[in-house]
C-alpha cells in the first residue's frame, strides 16, 4: 500500500514573507500530497519536531532572509539526532550560487530559487521522497 507523500512546509527565522511558502504548500496539496504548513518563525527544533509528529517524508524550508547557512545545517543535524536521516530536506528562496555546494554537501539537493516552475518542485519531491513511502 502506498500512502500520500507527507510534506512539512516551514518558515524558519524571523522573516514573514510567506507568499512562496503558501503557494508551494497549495501546489503540493493540489498535486496530491499531504501538506502541513507550520506558520511563521519556527526554530529548527520546532520544525524537526513537527516532522517527527507528522511522520513527514519531506521538509520544505522557505528562506528569503539570508539565514539559510545557519538554519539548514541545524535542521539536518537535528534530523540525524532523531534518527530521521531519511527525511528529504528541500529549500526554496533566495540562495546565492556560492552556497549551493555547501548545501549539497549537507545532502540538500532540492534548492529552488525564484522563478522555479511549481511542476519542477512537485517532480523533484515525487522523485526523491519515494524511499519512505
Amino acid at each position, binding site marked *: 500500500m502506498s500512502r500520500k507523500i507527507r510534506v512539512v512546509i516551514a518558515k524558519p527565522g524571523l522573516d514573514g514573507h510567506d507568499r512562496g511558502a*503558501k503557494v508551494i504548500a497549495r501546489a503540493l496539496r493540489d498535486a496530491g500530497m499531504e501538506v502541513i504548513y507550520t506558520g511563521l518563525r519556527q526554530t529548527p527544533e520546532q520544525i524537526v519536531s513537527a516532522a517527527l509528529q507528522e511522520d513527514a517524508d519531506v521538509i520544505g524550508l522557505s528562506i528569503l532572509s539570508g539565514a539559510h547557512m545557519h538554519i539548514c545545517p541545524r535542521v539536518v543535524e537535528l534530523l540525524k539526532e532523531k534518527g530521521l536521516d531519511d527525511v528529504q530536506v528541500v529549500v526554496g528562496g*533566495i540562495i*546565492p550560487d556560492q552556497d549551493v555546494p555547501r548545501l549539497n554537501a549537507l545532502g540538500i539537493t532540492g534548492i529552488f530559487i525564484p522563478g522555479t516552475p511549481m511542476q519542477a518542485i512537485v517532480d523533484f519531491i515525487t522523485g526523491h521522497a519515494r524511499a519512505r513511502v
Partner: protein
Amino acid sequence: MKGVVHPAEPARAGASERPGPFTTISGRPIERLYTAADVAGLDYAREIGHPGEFPYVRGIHPTGYRGKLWTMRQFAGYGTPEETNQRYKDLVAAGGTGLSVAFDLPTLMGRDPDHPLSLGEVGKCGVSIASLADMERLFDGIALADITTSMTINSPAPMIFAMYLVVAERQGADWQTISGTIQNDILKEFIAQKEYIFPPRPSMRLITDIFGFCAKEVPRWNTISVSGYHIREAGSTALQELAFTLRDGLEYVQYGVDAGLDVDDFVPRISFFFNSHSDFFEEIAKYRAARKLWADAMRNRFGARSPRSWQLRFHTQTAGVSLTAQQPYNNVVRTALQALAAVLGGTNSLHTNSLDEALALPTKETATIALRTQQILAHESGVANVVDPLGGSYFVEALTREMEEGALRYWETIDRMGGMVEAIEIGYPQKEIAEASYQFQQAVERREKTIVGVNDFVQADEKPIAILYIDDTTAERQLARLAELKRTRDNDRVQRALGGLRQAARGRDNTMPPLLECVRAYATVGEMCDALREVWGEYEETPVI
C-alpha cells in the same frame, strides 16, 4: 467630456486578434478600444479636476513636476551601521535627495542580535540597530536638519523614531523643523508582511500615541506611511492593493478621531506607499484613483476641512516581486517601465529596485544604475515637463473610474465586517491575497502570463553575476558591541526607564515620553519591546493557505 459620445469603432471585418486573454497582470479584462463613450458619464470639473484641485485625480500640485521633481529616495541598509552610513554618503554624493533606511529582521521584529531567533539574521536584510549607539553611528556626519529620512519600521517604530529624535537633538537639529517618515503601518503587517509583535489593538494605540506626540512635538514628521507595497508583493491584485491600503488609511484616521484628535491636526501627516508593478496603465489608474478615493473620504466621511487632509501624497517602489533571478539585466528594463508608470501616476517620491535584487541585496554598482534610471526619466525623457499627460485618455480615465468603483465595493464589504481590524481578525484580506497570488502563479504555470526569461524566452547556460555577499562578521561585531554596551551603561537608569514604559503601557499615558527616556538610557530595541510584550502579549496568526 460629458455629452460627447462616439460609438466604439466596430471591429473591422476579417481583422483577427491574437488568442489572448487580453487582461492586466491582475486578471482584469481589457477592451480592444476605448472611446468617448467609455467616459461619457464623467464630469471633468467634479470628478477629475485640474491638477491641484479637488478631487486631485490629476495630482495634488498645480505645477506637477515643473514645480518640484519627485524625491529620489533609494532604500538602503545592510551590515553594520558604519557600512550603511557609507552607502548613504555614496547615494547623497550620487545625487540622491533623501535617505531611506532598511533595517535587518531582528530590528524589525524587536529582537536584539543576541536573541536565539536572530541567529543568522543580523545585518542580512538591512542594517542592525540595537541601541542609540548604533543610531548615532548610522547618521554620523549626516545633518538631520538638512535631509529627510524615511525609516521602514513598523512594530518597533516608536523605539526607532525615539532614537532618531535623540540623535537629531544631539546634533542640535530642531524637532519642530526636521522631517521624514516612519512607516509605522501595522495593519499591512497583519495583512501581508507579517512583521508584527503585539496584538492589533495595542499596536493601534502605539500609532495613535505617535499621532498625538508628533502633532505637538514634531509637526513636520510623516507619522505613518500607509503601505500597499507589501500587500502587492504578497500577491494581491492592483485593485486589492488600492482598496485594502486606503481602507487601512481610513482605519487609522478613525482610531485617531476615536482617541480624541482633530482630523485636520493629524491627517495631513499621513502619507502612502504604493507598489509599481509591471502592468503599465493599470498602475497609473491605481494612483489616480487613490487620490480621488482619499480626497472624497476625508472630506465626506471624516469632515476634514483642510485641503492638506484631502491631498494624498505617496511614495512608490517598483515591484521587487517582478524581478527575475534569470537574465537579471532584464530587470533594469522592467524597473524603468515601472518607474515611468509611477511618475505618470504622479508619485511624490520613488525608489527604483536594482537588477540583482532577486539574488541578493544590491551592490553599489547596481544601486547606482537604479538611481540613474530615475535621473534619466527626470532629466532626459521629457515626462516631467507636463502635468498628468495621460489625463483625458479614454482608456486611462475609464480604468481610473473602474479602480475607484472596485475599491468602494471592497470598502463596503470591510465596513460591514466592522472595520479593517475586525476584517484582519477573521482573515479576510489575508484570504483574498492568498487566493489572488495562487491564481497568478497558476496563470504563470499555464503560460497565460508570460515572464520573459522565466516561462518563455528562457536562456540555457546563463553566466552568474557578482552579488553582494554578507558574511557573519557583522553579527560578531554587533554582538560584541551589545555586550560592551550592557557592561558600560547605567543599568539602574535602564531598569527605571523600562519600568516607566511598562507603567505607561498599562495605563493611558502617551508612550513616547517614556520611550525617549529609555532611548537616552541606552535601553535596546529588544528590551523596550520585551517590556511591552510583558504588558500586551504577542500576536500569533492562524495561517491561511
